[in-house]
């Protein structure tokens, strides 16, 4: 989605006798491809800058020598021949030369890619073993990476891997070393791949034409694509929603490997999770039978020593990060679906009848499809009779969505991440994009490469900061002060967009009053960025012809989360950066269906498509559609529901795919709350920490086993398709939900997810017209006014906002300190976050062979100077303690984390971050402050780690 070139002249030529007209500058190879003429090539891929080194793509243009079509541009009147005896002889000779030292079949690694060189050898009848050169060139294998195998002897030095690494992913790891016959590809300073800075995205292996770089076997034995079944689907991890083709071994019922698939969003790119993290679904610990808690394990409580938080927990037999099944399973007995479902429906109904509907609550999940999310909220609202339904979005972007709805009337992004290519300036605030949205990050890096100025504002020096023109390392939780100061400078220096403010906004005067006192000098004292730099950034941003703002959890997960987001929205409105190409507001969504789960109504105060439960007309609409009276009272949010369980306000809960024990703040409180519930039903694919507190556990299906729609961070609704069958008696989530509803006396019957989607889209105007059928193959953006032909609207709000006044509203914010400040006893700031290789509570990624191999251990990160003062070496264990609890884990030295701070990934159950966090909420978005707690750090005795 790069800016289209200024209109160029057309060039007319003939290729193999066919007349063709192409824009000036088009290569012959590309022009031929458009005509459907395939020219063999080894070193070229349309996504890469052509280099013309393999010479296989030579064509006859009537000149002295043949021309390499991948680099030669079309010229007027040119007559191109792509097939002739002479060309065949030339290509055959080149293939023969490349094959002359190609390694023997017997020592070749199995390649997942189609070996294009071998295909050519077959086509031209090259006999192997005829050459006088020794087989292979003596260059060794490099098997140091857990996911990519390197066979240097099969490498033909086409440089595709180097260009894929540099130009597509911008990881800049691969180069050439040496000269002449000794030349080979090298990683960083010619390190083994596994010890280089490689992030294992696998882009190099995906473009390699000879299998010199190939995927390592993760499940069933590798076989060529043609020998496997392929299913076009999606990635199950983050909100970027990359499109993937899974290659399936049907007999083994497993994904063998994955390829990126062409689509407007991800454009075939993948990261390590998407390409190598698919094997969790066939992990032997999958739940395959409904489970009912045995009598003798009441009263309820945690079952494993880890989850109990027992002192001796760290001496458990098995290392690693999974629930100890041996400890937990004896507390449950297998049951039939009938018995389990009757028990769930019976107990929930009993609580409803005795204590009222509001004593029930449900947590859906942003990992489930739109159809499942829709049905789940319908179950809670129509069958339970309450609006106590929420999900993990509450913990990531609730404050962003609340601020967006308040100011511009819509909680979704106003533009796609790919449009950053059209942005003059991109601002990335509080987002560790390269780790959490790795493929979106590649498009930001693309843009930087093509001239976009990148500003990164973060408390940590994250991976994306290394690509920034301006990196502002602010004090944690000082965002409002910084943005207010930037706006103060813009207003003071008259850099604001007066026309835009006049035509499209309201509340400017109030904003001006509030930010007046935020001079850069005042802000410098709060956020630690010099006043001059604040002025400079304000000018850069305000003078941009177009500016796009991305943000992540560094903005939202604060008690001032909504204020932080309001400031970013005001920045965009002040400078008129909404509604045009290269502009907009883009809170990067976390889970693969965060956007969709919210759209589908897993929100306690909204029906599907953000229709308020408190609005009588809306209530009437849904009562009519669902045929039952509905509760007009907004429900409780995630953290409030946990609090309600503790106070017995909530007595029965149903959780579909959520693991609040690890994901919610203040674990010790969550433990008590879960144990206090009269009844808990957990529906999941593995035994989670939360499931230890369950009365009934229902075995559900993984992403790979079901068909449904998922809405990505761009608002792109895409279809995830069933690739595998569910293990044992595990069932589809939507079928389970229907059964529970029916047994509670509320009829729910559907034949397919298409039918559920139809019902949902009829009630959600933003999704109107979309069907599973018209969403193939690469989905559509909502809203989509012409679903049969159009791709949906990419850029929203060019002509006003869906607010009552039609205007975007400035909501000014005052700087406020975080809820828990460091003091003498707890002097460090604790900041929780994520790693590239792991996903949230680790239920999936820690059961993925590759991902767990790359990042197997819990750790925290601190500045080397802080470690030196504490007398701790990198790799040694430290004891982290807050007012709520303590954990012990290894510490790594890193200058990315500033002095006085501790960065703690929250994926690791053996060192659960949320033992430490507190549950103070943003008053507006009800999101907890995961990004700031006061913590004490001490050297720990090695034995206790």
């Amino acid at each position, binding site marked *: 989605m790069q800016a289209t070139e200024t209109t160029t002249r057309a060039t007319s030529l003939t290729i193999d006798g066919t007349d063709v007209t192409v824009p000036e500058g088009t290569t012959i190879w590309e022009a031929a491809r458009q005509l459907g003429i395939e020219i063999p090539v080894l070193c070229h891929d349309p996504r890469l800058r052509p280099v013309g080194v393999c010479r296989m793509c030579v064509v006859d243009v009537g000149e002295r020598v043949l021309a390499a079509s991948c680099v030669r541009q079309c010229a007027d009147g040119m007559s191109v021949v792509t097939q002739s005896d002479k060309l065949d002889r030339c290509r055959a000779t080149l293939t023969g030369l490349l094959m002359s030292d190609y390694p023997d079949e017997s020592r070749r690694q199995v390649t997942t890619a189609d070996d294009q060189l071998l295909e050519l050898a077959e086509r031209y009848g090259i006999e192997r073993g005829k050459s006088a050169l020794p087989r292979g060139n003596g260059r060794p294998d490099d098997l140091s990476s857990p996911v990519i195998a390197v066979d240097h002897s099969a490498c033909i030095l086409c440089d595709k891997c*180097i260009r894929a690494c*540099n130009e597509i992913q911008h990881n*800049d*790891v*691969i*180069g*050439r*070393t*040496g*000269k002449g016959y000794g030349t080979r590809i*090298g*990683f*960083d*300073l*010619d390190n083994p791949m596994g010890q280089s800075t490689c992030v294992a995205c696998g882009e190099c292996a995906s473009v390699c034409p000879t299998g010199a770089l190939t995927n390592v076997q993760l499940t069933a034995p590798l076989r060529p694509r043609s020998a496997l079944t392929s299913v076009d689907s999606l990635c199950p991890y983050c909100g970027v929603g990359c499109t993937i083709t899974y290659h399936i071994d049907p007999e083994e019922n497993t994904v063998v490997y994955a390829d990126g698939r062409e689509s407007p969003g991800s454009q075939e790119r993948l990261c390590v999770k998407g390409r190598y993290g698919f094997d969790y679904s066939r992990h032997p610990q999958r739940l395959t039978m409904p489970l009912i808690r045995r009598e003798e394990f009441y009263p309820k409580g945690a079952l494993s020593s880890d989850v109990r938080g027992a002192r001796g927990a760290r001496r458990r037999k098995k290392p690693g990060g999974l629930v100890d099944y041996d400890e937990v399973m004896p507390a449950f007995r297998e049951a039939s679906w009938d018995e389990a479902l009757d028990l769930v429906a019976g107990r929930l109904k009993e609580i409803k009848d005795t204590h009222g509907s509001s004593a029930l609550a449900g947590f859906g999940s942003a990992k489930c499809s739109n159809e499942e999310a829709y049905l789940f909220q319908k179950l809670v609202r129509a069958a339970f009779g309450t609006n106590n339904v929420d999900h993990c979005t509450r913990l990531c972007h609730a404050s962003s969505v609340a601020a967006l709805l308040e100011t511009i009337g819509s909680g979704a992004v106003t533009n796609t991440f790919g449009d950053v290519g059209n942005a003059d300036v991109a601002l990335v605030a509080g987002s560790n994009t390269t780790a959490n949205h790795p493929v979106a990050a590649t498009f930001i890096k693309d843009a930087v490469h093509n001239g976009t100025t990148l500003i990164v504002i973060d408390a940590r020096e994250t991976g994306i900061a290394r690509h920034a023109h301006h990196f502002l390392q602010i004090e944690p939780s000082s965002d409002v002060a910084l943005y207010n100061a930037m706006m103060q400078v813009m207003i003071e220096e008259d850099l604001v967009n007066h026309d835009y403010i006049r035509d499209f906004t309201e509340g400017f005067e109030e904003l001006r009053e509030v930010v007046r006192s935020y001079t850069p000098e005042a802000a410098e004292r709060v956020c630690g960025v010099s006043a001059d730099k604040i002025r400079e950034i304000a000018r850069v941003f305000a003078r941009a012809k177009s500016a796009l703002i991305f943000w992540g959890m560094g903005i939202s997960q604060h008690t001032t989360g909504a204020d932080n987001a309001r400031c970013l929205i005001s920045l965009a409105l002040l400078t008129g950066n909404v509604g045009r190409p290269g502009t907009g507001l883009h809170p990067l969504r976390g889970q693969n269906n965060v956007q969709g789960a919210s759209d589908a109504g897993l929100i306690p105060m909204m029906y599907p498509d953000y229709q308020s439960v408190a609005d009588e007309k809306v209530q009437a609409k849904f009562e009519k559609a669902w045929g039952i009276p509905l509760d007009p009272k907004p429900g409780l949010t995630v953290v409030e529901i946990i609090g309600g369980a503790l106070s017995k306000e909530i007595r029965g809960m149903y959780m579909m795919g959520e693991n609040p024990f690890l994901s919610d703040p203040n674990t010790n409180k969550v433990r008590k709350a879960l144990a206090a519930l009269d009844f808990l039903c957990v529906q999941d694919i593995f035994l989670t920490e939360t499931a230890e507190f369950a009365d009934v556990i229902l075995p559900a299906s993984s992403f790979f086993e079901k068909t449904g729609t998922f809405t990505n961070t761009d608002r792109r609704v895409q279809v995830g398709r069933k690739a595998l069958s569910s293990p044992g008696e595990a069932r589809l989530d939507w079928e389970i939900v229907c059964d529970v509803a029916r047994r509670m006396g509320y009829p729910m019957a559907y034949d397919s997810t298409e039918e559920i989607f139809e019902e949902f889209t009829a009630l959600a105007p933003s999704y109107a017209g979309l069907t599973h059928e018209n969403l193939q193959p690469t989905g559509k953006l909502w809203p989509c006014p012409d679903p049969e032909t159009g791709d949906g609207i990419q850029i929203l709000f060019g002509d006003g906002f869906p607010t009552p006044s039609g205007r975007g509203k400035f909501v000014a914010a005052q700087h406020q300190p975080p809820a828990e400040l460091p003091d003498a006893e707890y002097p460090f700031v604790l900041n929780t976050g994520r790693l590239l290789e792991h996903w949230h509570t680790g239920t999936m990624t820690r059961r993925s062979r590759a991902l767990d191999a790359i990042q197997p251990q819990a750790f925290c990160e601190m500045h080397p100077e802080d470690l030196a003062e504490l007398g701790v070496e990198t790799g040694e264990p430290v004891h982290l303690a807050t007012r709520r609890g303590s954990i012990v884990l290894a510490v790594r030295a890193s200058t990315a984390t500033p002095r006085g701070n501790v960065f703690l990934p929250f994926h690791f159950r053996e060192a659960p971050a949320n033992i430490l966090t507190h549950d103070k909420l943003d008053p507006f978005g009800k999101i907890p402050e995961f990004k700031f707690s006061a913590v004490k750090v001490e050297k720990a005795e090695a034995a206790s780690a």
Partner: protein
Amino acid sequence: MSERKLHPAVAGAQPMYRAENDPDAPLFEGAYKQRFDDILTRYPDKRAAILPVLAMCQELRGWISSETIERVAELLDLTPAYVLSITSFYTMFRPQPVGKYLIQVCTSIGCDLCGAENVVEKLLAATGTRTGEISEDGLYTVIEVECLGACGFATVVQVNERVYESVKTETVTRLLEELR
């Protein structure tokens, strides 16, 4: 003829092999920082300055270390892998520290026909080293290089910046003595 002042960016204008190199000397400081800045002024982009910048580093330290590669990559906005592709391509950039005298023997076709291999053998024996190593007294490192451009005087040997013509096995001992 008046003395021609060469721009500092011209790689050949400065000696790449100096007897008084210091393998751990600080890079890009003082006069060397000034020279680095001067070099950059000569090119339209930073990447183009890679050869003279590397040559300057080698002049100072006598070799190109991993640390040097990383520093140069950072200063020129290149990837370390790219800088390595340059330094590992040109034999003039040394991947290890060298002795006071870097003895470079041409083993391209002309010199080879005139007995270059024997000269190399003799030099290695006399210095008690293997190719690329530093002799025990720290004085000598012997390496084979591509054509030095004086084929009429084969075998050609270059010691640091000075070229010795028509070297034969018999003259090797005298050559080493002269250096000492």
